[in-house]
């Protein structure tokens, strides 16, 4: 385009369109240049129309709020694992806070889902049932040793070692509907002096630990 190169030299201030056509006449004051981004809450010229109120509107509103609350309580609401608090407290061991990381609270129909999505909790449990029986007698002596140790060392060191085992055992206890005797539960859940069922915030003081072999039999 010959004219373009030529136009650059002459008439520098010329625009490609005529000012009158756009509507800015000669001598009109142009609006001031904008030096900052537009305000966050610009004032509205016109007031917005009021929201519809009435029985239907209020019912739907209440329904919405109820639904929101209800969905938080359903098992589909997955909360991230509670982070460890700064100080490990004694009661941590005895307070079971919700579903443990590796399992789901509800039972989907596994036939409809890809197999890879199934979280393998069964495996642990199967291992345990086979090894359970022979392990029991040696376990008691182990426990005795451990109790002696506990009296001497700080509890905190053990917690780290035994808490994982505890969790796994608790998980297998809870998630599977195996008919395990109460004896087993107590036997394996506690790795401490105190019997699990005793710790109930001081409310239940029950003597259901007759068959507990942990305490030394005098």
């Amino acid at each position, binding site marked *: 385009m010959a004219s373009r190169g030529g136009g650059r030299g002459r008439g520098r201030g010329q625009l490609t*369109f005529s000012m009158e056509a756009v*509507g800015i006449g000669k001598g009109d004051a142009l609006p001031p240049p904008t030096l900052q981004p537009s305000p966050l809450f610009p004032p509205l010229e*016109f007031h917005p129309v009021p929201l*519809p109120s009435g029985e239907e509107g209020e019912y739907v509103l209440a*329904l919405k709020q109820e639904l929101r609350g209800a969905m938080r309580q359903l098992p589909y*609401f997955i909360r991230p694992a509670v982070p460890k608090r700064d100080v490990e407290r004694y009661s941590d061991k005895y307070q079971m806070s919700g579903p443990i990381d590796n399992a789901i609270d509800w039972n989907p129909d596994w036939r409809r*889902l890809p197999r890879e*999505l199934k979280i393998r909790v069964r495996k642990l449990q199967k291992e345990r049932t086979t090894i359970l029986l022979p392990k029991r007698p040696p376990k008691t002596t182990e426990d005795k040793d451990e109790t002696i140790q506990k009296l001497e060392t700080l509890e905190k060191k053990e917690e780290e070692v035994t808490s994982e085992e505890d969790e796994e055992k608790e998980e297998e206890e809870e998630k599977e509907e195996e008919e395990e005797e109460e004896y087993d*539960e107590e036997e394996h859940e506690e790795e401490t002096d105190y019997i699990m069922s005793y710790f109930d915030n001081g409310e239940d003081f029950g003597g259901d630990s007759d068959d507990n072999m942990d305490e030394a039999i005098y």
Partner: protein
Amino acid sequence: MTQAEIKLCSLLLQEHFGEIVEKIGVHLIRTGSQPLRVIAHDTGTSLDQVKKALCVLIQHNLVIYQVHKRGVVEYEAQCSRVLRMLRYPRYIYTAKTLYSDTGELIVEELLLNGKMAMSAVVKKVADRLTETMEDGKTMDYAEVSNTFVRLADTHFVQRCPLVPATENSDPGPPPPAPTLVISEKDMYLVPKLSLIGKGKRRRSSDEDATGEPKAKRPKHTTDNKEPIPDDGIYWQANLDRFHQHFRDQGIVSAVANRMDQFTFQTQTSSEIVRTMLRMSEITTSSSAPFTQPLSSNEIFRSLPVGYNISKQVLDQYLTLLADDPLEFVGKSGDSGGGMYVINLHKALGSLATATLESVIQERFGSRCARIFRLVLQKKHLEQKQVEDFAMIPAKEAKDMLYKMLSENFISLQEIPKTPDHAPSRTFYLYTVNILSAARMLLHRCYKSVANLIERRQFETKENKRLLEKSQRVEAIIASMQATGAEEAQLQEIEEMITAPERQQLETLKRNVNKLDACEIQVVETIFLLESYIESTVKRQ
């Protein structure tokens, strides 16, 4: 998926399912279909968390899976389905208006749980209804079943695709994921169940089957052992059918607003249109541009019982509707006393246009709206012509046009006179492209809803301490009332919340309610615009 949509999906998932599901869901929406390990790697979450999240998402029909070659299963998120979560309250309310409380609870359970078997739904709903009834009365399963069957017959609930029954003829190892199939005719087939029973009131008794204590599971839980009669048949809410219903509602109310204001008989034209729509409910698919032709005789026979207008009056009304410039109803033939159709596509277009006009009127003023309607009617106008036709002074008209242009409600069409497109020798015509304006407005609506949700969450978080305190006080009062406390004690407890705190709580409640109500309004607008865009895109 636009950024605004993704942001909205993220907020919805977080509010309803928690952060883990939100992270996985948003990642899938952004990146498309991916296998399990890649998801875990890219989002940096543990494999188990990803599995949990995917189970939840698949259960709620938000994610689908597909088996590719070499046995790799890929998961894909459905962004539009996530956005439907905004409308859950409306679906439930619609079920309530059509099938009363029983229907409402059935749809609510199905929406909250994604998919459920019929027996499970019936049992749960019966229990819930029994809770609300007076002491001594219980809800029979049969009644709930009947409502369920009615919902299935009118297509409001449908069956989920089934696992195909492989009968030991599968030689190789089972596939990594089942391929679910459903045939059209089976979709609404209700299995023959004989559900006998009554709803149970939830008492704090030991043999409550639903509340299983965590520590010591009872050994004999008969409910879990019995095989469910309709094992493997799951039901879900049919959202498309609800959308069809909303659309019909919109059309009927539009006709009522337009035609029934000045007639003596209340709402005759809208009743006629409603009847026509009801007759075409199952025969016409939801994406058809117009309904099947209905003869005037058929319409006359199908009018609701209370309406005793004569055939002639009906014909007059139909002619009036067909001649209306809005073209909701069209005449397609003369047999059978006149064949009439409802122009669904045109109706949606009119509704979308009305929405746009209303937005401009509320945002820029009625003169702007006049210019907009003018340009819409005349299709293309030059600047000078706009000033003349609208009878608005030149300066103001220019100002308004440029304001609307900057917000993309109006666009410019260039028509060059010379091949070099010189601006001084080009016509610039203002025009309205409804589809693009609707898309732009829809995008803004998504942004507004996201803003509303965020603001509501912010307000709630700011006052979290106060809210918790008030909840605790309420719980204390409730427990004290149950054990029979004196007035003075209750007064004392109530005074634990000081007057300015009460004021703050009131303000918070009012604000949250207002934000929620705004959200509901915007979601209705979103529905209209989405329907129009979908219908237009399908026709192209």
